[in-house]
């Protein structure tokens, strides 16, 4: 007789379609059911009380938890190698909820300056109203991170693949710095997805996603996710360790151990802030997630082709894709993103000032297949000219300061036939060089 094979740790693709969903005993539904309900009938008055005291696991109200959303949460936790997850209304909500759970007025965060513009606005404007300070530093300048840390610093923050120049964060160096200061490292892994990079494996404490992007992947639902490695000792971290006045002085880390941060984020922050995800959106994001690896392979391969094409184009001044050997973070990309550094990147048209700003507009208007809109991570290829849209109110000087020049065009490369995408770019460049200039 052969020995029974040992239990197996299933691979990424298997967990992508199975994790978090065991067909239920009643119906056996194979697809994840959409629990479109606000609330859940209690078993008994005693059980209701136990649920409200967090002494029993179970559902009370969809603002706090929902069975469809729980599948999305557990599946992403499995894929990121996290101890658990909390899905919320959007990527912006994920950031806000994670940091509201960790921070108290007067606290500080040190963050990479290469962030999504919306994140910078949240950190600089909204957080200011809450007496929270975020110091932005050049992600490549190790000494700058260290210098910016003060006794009030409660977290380090960055994006695996940064905006707008596709810079790659040196996760292990930052994790070591965070560990040395006993603070968590929070990583926004939106552009990479857990298929291309799993920051927890490189020492990150908390991982965030705008699931709206590649996780959902089809541009049809907005959602965000907070994941905890469960590896951080919060016993001396005031906001998680201290007694909670809203739960009879419950100490979340004492009582829930490695689930403490997430339990507090769910039962206090999301409960009070109300930034919950809709069950329908959880379902749509799950539907996307089931093909994540297949889509990401194609996204990356198309992006790599297009980046190479652009780099050789005479009308292009620069291409900022870490998959190219010319990018300053190419080596970091090979280390942390060996399957490829995603499919969102920017390039610059040749030219200067007002002329190149006009060229950018004309280039985008000439494209047939790239959709001109403000999103990334869709199956369809997307394009935007920041200087004439998201950043149009800025002067040339202000644009330069935030690294968004008038020549910059950002692409999110989709799943179309790559030859068709190259044709589209080609004909738009042709239109640019053959249009009459003023």
């Amino acid at each position: 007789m052969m020995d029974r094979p040992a239990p197996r740790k299933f691979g990424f693709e298997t967990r992508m379609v199975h994790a978090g969903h065991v067909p239920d005993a009643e119906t056996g539904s194979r697809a994840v059911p959409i629990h479109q309900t606000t609330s859940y009938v209690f078993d008994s008055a005693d059980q209701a009380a136990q649920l409200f005291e967090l002494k029993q696991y179970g559902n009370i109200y969809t603002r706090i938890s929902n069975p469809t959303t729980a599948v999305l949460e557990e599946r992403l936790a499995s894929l990121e190698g996290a101890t658990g997850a909390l899905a919320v209304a959007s990527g912006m909500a994920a950031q806000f909820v994670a940091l509201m759970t960790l921070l108290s007025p007067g606290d500080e965060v040190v963050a990479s300056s290469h962030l999504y513009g919306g994140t910078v606005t949240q950190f600089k404007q909204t957080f200011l109203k809450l007496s929270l300070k975020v110091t932005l530093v050049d992600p490549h300048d190790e000494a700058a991170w260290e210098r910016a840390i003060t006794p009030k610093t409660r977290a380090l923050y960055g994006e695996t693949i940064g905006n707008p120049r596709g810079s790659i964060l040196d996760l292990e160096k930052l994790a070591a710095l965070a560990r040395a200061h006993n603070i968590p490292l929070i990583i926004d892994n939106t552009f990479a997805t857990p298929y291309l990079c799993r920051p927890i494996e490189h020492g990150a404490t908390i991982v965030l996603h705008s699931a709206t992007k590649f996780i959902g992947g089809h541009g049809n639902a907005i959602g965000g996710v907070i994941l905890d490695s469960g590896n951080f000792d919060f016993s001396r971290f005031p906001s998680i360790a201290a007694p909670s006045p809203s739960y009879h002085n419950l100490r979340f880390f004492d009582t829930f151990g490695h689930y403490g941060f997430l339990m507090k984020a769910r039962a206090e922050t999301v409960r009070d802030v109300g930034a919950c995800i809709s069950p329908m959106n959880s379902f749509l994001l799950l539907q996307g997630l089931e093909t994540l690896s297949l889509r990401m392979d194609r996204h990356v391969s198309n992006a790599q082709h297009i980046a190479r094409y652009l780099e050789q184009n005479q009308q292009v001044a620069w291409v900022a894709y870490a998959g190219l050997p010319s990018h300053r973070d190419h080596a970091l990309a090979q280390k942390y993103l060996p399957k490829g550094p995603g499919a969102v990147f920017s390039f610059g048209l040749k030219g200067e000032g007002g002329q190149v700003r006009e060229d950018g507009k004309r280039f985008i208007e000439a494209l047939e297949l790239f959709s001109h809109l403000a999103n990334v991570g869709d199956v369809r290829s997307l394009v935007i000219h920041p200087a004439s849209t998201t950043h149009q109110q800025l002067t040339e000087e202000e644009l330069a300061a935030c690294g968004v020049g008038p020549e910059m065009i950002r692409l999110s490369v989709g799943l179309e036939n790559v030859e068709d995408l190259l044709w589209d770019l080609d004909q738009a460049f042709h239109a640019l060089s053959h249009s009459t200039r003023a």
Partner: protein
Amino acid sequence: MGSGSGVSCAVTLNTSLTPEQRARYQDVAQINQLLDSARTIALVGLSSDRQKASYFVAGYLKDEGYRIVPVNPKADTILGEKVYSDVASIPFPIDLIDIFRPPQDVDEIVNQAISRKEKGIDSPALWMQLRIINLPAAERALAAGLTVIVDKCVKMEHGRYRGGLHYAGMNTEIISARKRRR
């Protein structure tokens, strides 16, 4: 495996034990068998403070239908149950001893468990809660023929295999295409 689902994925998260130690002290089939077969659970070091982890675990287990037996030298009644001062003085058979005491206190608890077995009272399994690790004591209990689980939480494991933990968004590491059994 009772009402839980099939489990084929090894549970690996959040323990400070090595893979070899996990295989020895955190066997998934053994944990499930214990959760299924145990009826009476002694909780050593159960606090009377409503917000302590041990109180959460005891209340949960009582709700889930287990008979709980508080062991604490400083209390009379916890969660409506009579409290015993140590494991040796529990006058009826127990199936599982859930330990909420520091590692150095585990030696004496194991002594008393082994003595119960030698006297033919019962043969209780020993379970050291998260981060309570005393491997020499665990080995003595194993040598005496007792089941031992180390560095796991009974509530979390029950929640994991009976579905409730999943609703809190946690990674149960259960992967199965089979219909969940009732």
